[in-house]
């Protein structure tokens, strides 16, 4: 017997697990998968085990912040119905870029459904993703804001977890890809052109070593932590 979530996900080509993270675009998924592959080779830990899954809200215009809002609402509703129908329980959380649109839409999700809680069901990317240790919601949000207080207001996307020298190398090789940089307390957020983002992804896939992906690996561990999965033993 197949539940609503599974049927829906099959139509989309998603491989859903029981603890799922919905991200804005394909590039987020690729970075996360790359980090998982590198870390699995390095440490033998599979960061995507125990039902953990990551997938993007859609392609191009169908993805992005609005895609996360749309898909997360649909998936949570279906998961709720599946649970009521005594089928596999699945959890879905949304992960937004920490930029104007991401913050706005994360808030919108919570405004539209009071059961969706900030830092329990929707998360923003931060340079430091705090450990939850079982505490979610306002307390985790407080921790995230405290630990990232020095760079409050700085936009943050998954590419910003990549190390400085890797990005420098990329920018040198691809002039015109970078639009602007925003620096705060030693952290740098970079805005790339649409094409530049694609080039960076390919560059990283070809050039990167596991050391370059440590921050992304930590991000996955944090997400596993938030979803109540084993993470301590997997951390770099």
């Amino acid at each position, binding site marked *: *017997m*197949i*539940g*609503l979530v599974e*049927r*829906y996900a099959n*139509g*989309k080509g998603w491989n859903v697990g029981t603890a799922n993270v919905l991200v804005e675009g394909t590039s987020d998924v690729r970075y996360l998968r790359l980090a998982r592959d590198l870390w699995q080779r390095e440490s033998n830990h599979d960061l995507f085990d125990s039902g953990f899954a990551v997938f993007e809200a*859609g*392609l191009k215009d*169908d993805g*992005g*912040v*609005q895609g996360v809002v*749309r898909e997360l*609402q*649909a998936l949570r*509703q279906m998961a709720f*119905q*599946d649970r*009521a*129908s*005594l*089928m596999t329980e699945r959890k879905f959380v949304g992960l937004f870029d920490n930029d*104007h*649109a991401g913050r*706005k839409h994360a808030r*919108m999700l919570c*405004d*539209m*459904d*009071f*059961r969706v809680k900030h830092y329990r069901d929707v998360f923003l990317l931060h340079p430091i993703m705090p450990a939850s240790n079982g505490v979610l919601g306002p307390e985790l949000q407080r921790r995230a804001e405290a630990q990232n207080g020095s760079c409050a207001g700085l936009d943050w996307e998954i590419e910003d977890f990549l190390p400085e020298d890797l990005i420098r190398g990329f920018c040198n090789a691809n002039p015109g890809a970078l*639009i602007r940089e925003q620096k705060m307390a030693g952290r740098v957020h970079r*805005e790339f052109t649409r094409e530049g983002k694609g080039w960076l992804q390919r560059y990283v896939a070809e050039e990167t070593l596991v050391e370059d992906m440590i921050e992304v690996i930590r991000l996955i561990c944090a997400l596993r932590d938030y979803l109540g999965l084993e993470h301590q033993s997997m951390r770099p």
Partner: protein
Amino acid sequence: MSEIVDRLQILAPDALPILSELDSRDASLWLMPSFAEAAGPEATAGVLSLPWEFVLSETASEDLLKAVDALDSAIETPLVRRRGLVHVIDVPPSNTVLPPRSLPIFLLNGRTEADNAGFAARARRMEMIRELQQRGVRSLVVLGGPDLMLPAELEQLWQDGFQCGLTIVSDDPEARQKITEWQAGAGARRVTLLPAPAALLSEALHRRYTERADDRLIIRVRDAQGTRHRVDLSGRDDPEHPLLGNYELLSEAHLEYVTPEGLSSEEINGFFRDSSASWRPYAAQMPWPRDDRARNTLTKALRDLDRNGPEASRIFYIRAESGAGATTFIRDLAFGAAMDGYPTLIANQAPFTPSGRSVANFINSCLNGITAADIGKGLRQYEAPWLIAFDRSQWEGREGDIATFARQITEAGRRICIVFVTDALLPVAIYAEKRLENLSDLSHEISQEAAMALGQHLNRFLRPLGTAREAHEWQAFVNHSLVGPAAGRSVFWIALAFWLQRQIDLTETVQGWLYDQFRQKVTDPVVRHAIVDIAAMSTVRQLLPETLLPRSEDFPTRDKLSDLQSTVGALGVVRQRFGTVSHWAMIHDQLGRFLLTGLFHDAPARESAGLAAAQNPDHLRLMVLARIASNPMIAHPDLVELAETFATSIFKIDPGQGRSEFALYWCEALEALDAMPKTFRMASRTFLHHSSISRRRIAKDDLMFPINDDKRADLLRRSTGDIEAALALEHDAGGEPDLNLYNSLAHAYHDLAEVEARRGTPAEQVAALRSKANKATYSAYRLNPDNSYVLEVYARDRLIGASEDPDGAASVALEVLGIVYGAMQRETAELRRNALSRLADKAFDLLLRSAGTVDDTEPSTEGEAIQQALSALGDGMTQREGMSLDDFPRTNRIDAAARLGHPLLRSNAQAVRLRYILACMDHPKDFALQLELLETLDGNRAILSPQLDLELTILMHQRNRHHQASQRFQKLRQLWARGEHYVEVPDRLRWLLDESTGQRRQVRARIASGGDGARLHARVQELQNDRVPFRIAEFDGTQLRPGTNISGLISFGHNGPLLRPLTAG
């Protein structure tokens, strides 16, 4: 005293078993000539005048019809209030439109001998008798008289499977024998004989019914000082179109104080079963006060209305998880408001389309009654605000209409607060409407402390009955529900009700218990079928009309359900009767889900229910709902609202608007809609429109619905066809307006053109489709150029046209930006803003594609000037998603405005409009500039929309051109009266300002003669002595005689200026 012989119950001659059925209008009458002759015309007319559901009469004697004509038809009489006016009908029922509340007397044989012959007469008679089946009559009384002749068709009806409770009134000595013979032939099981003489029965029945029918309507109303008074509002409702057929008005009788000890165990258990069944538990304060903040907010909102008039009217929503106690919560709020003397209406659960105008008319009528009661003598004029409360079902699928509903009432000058219940996940239409405010959120999450406090509270009511739960029992229940195995199952409140009634213990779940009850105690396949149908309808929060119950061969299904009441009651199944239509429902949608989930997992039971093909519980639900939708009886006019709900809500596929319940089974959902009775489908604009929206959404969303373009084209063709068919139908008030249909039609043709272009259809055919889209767009635009959805489709149409005409690209980009940003200034809903901003993005893209590099030299053509201005506006903006002009750098806006003011663009209306929008943003108090710009557009109907016209008119007032402004407002008021226009006064123009200081301008006025009781007029010196209305209630303590001078402020509404006290706002 009675005896039962051969399935015939014989009552004592003075027994009157019909009285309670008359109360609920659950009985119909068949009058035989023998009875009428024996009782005489007046006595017979007296019996006919009682609140039967309807009457079939075999006689139409002149004397009888005269006596019926002479019946008291005064609307304040209890009988008229109960059943409306009497309508004597001598034509087939299908040729007659009856008001919602009425008593039809069908003359089976026409009025005269001549009417009683030929095929037409037989057809009429048959159609009238068929009403018994159509209406699913539950109880039929045959007035047989001393010479009993049972109607010839009665036997045939029973042989055809029709059954109902049958009572025969006859003092014929051979009545018993005649009935027994008839029973044998007809196969009728339950018949009751009342051997009363006609005259005796007529007199006794009429007297005893009217004696007990004291349904005076006395409500509690506060005066200006908050003192409560009793006011009799009997006869204030329209007897034929009664508002109180759809709403309940809380009366003094409901508010009478009840002590906790005064509640019986039946009332207490009844409250746990169905909290809407009685007001007495509320009067005893049994509901647990869950959220004092909500109550305080509502009380404050009602008090604000005292001071600030209809403009302070508020609309609140309560978000609630299913089964989390929203019904109790909203009823408790309503009860509290009524106790405080705020007249309170609560909508019934039966499906109906709320009409703001009907409510306004009712309130107006009641206010006249309150004024006549002369309460609060010597105090200032005062109009008590009303509370209108809706539980979940009324606005489901049409949440966007609630603001219109409220506007229709406030435009009539009435003060209201509306509270309604909605889902935990807000429908987009509610989220998008800034005027709707969140009052409270109700979930199954509850803290341990609160749960224990709840236990203590409820024990006060349970203790007198000896059913109180000990503290350790509460603790165990709380532990089990909140932290134990049931935690997270989201049914705390439902489980609580079952546990308190001692139906479940902590070893079982509600779901398991419920299904076990169903499996073990409901054995009749028809009753099982009926309960499954009721459960499925409850999951979509609808009641199942009794006429849609599955048919039973041996015994009416409704009677079987009633007989099983002790079991079905425990399942949460209840019967409710609104007007003359009965419904069945489960008290929580969750209970319906539990039952269907249980059924799905019980393979043998599922198979015997004909649902073996179900793939999961939701698919099973869909199958059951589809079966109900295809029932031919759903086409009955009484059930149109419900039938439309299948298209507007139950099977609606619109994931973007949060309607995706059956999206995964969209094919079956559409098939189910197509399988609904054709007579209904082809006559309902709403059905055609909403089913076409579903088809278009499916065709549009290639990610969620991965189908090929051939299929998409099929869906879109069907969609356009259905909308055109809807447009060909006459528009009924309250139905789907032309504007919405044209809007959808334009979208559908555009989408079809896109798909056809992809499929390689010849260019001229694609162009023809675009042309149809274009035509529909302009039809919508003509109807309402301010509507955000119309503007969206219009802008889309312009952009598509421009991509085929690169030379005009800059102008189109300018026009689209003007339209889109103008609409965004008024639109606060994020999703609407996003839709509009995507169009703005496309306009910028169009500009960039067509312009190439933009030089910063002196422009030589209009096109260059536009390109320069728009480039300046978007300079450095890489991300425009969801942005309005507010989010653009101010320097960009100022630069763009300056460039739009270039001499080359002075007469370009699109440039002027965008400049005006920029001026409002960056120079909000520069009324001279704003007026100058809008006056440039004056006379250009294509651009000066009613919204801009309103702003221009107010700007004239602000610039002291009051005479002209007054004339323009007169025209605007005529425009508003002619059609639906969604305009609003921007905040910057809300008050008449002193331009030199920017402060609100104080004015002096002299009261003029005339007025309507709630409003007077005054001549305002600063408005060139223009006559301006003001609300009497706002000028507290002032002697308001003609000639009196008063000071005040001027606020502007869509109808013009209003004189307000100096303390206003």
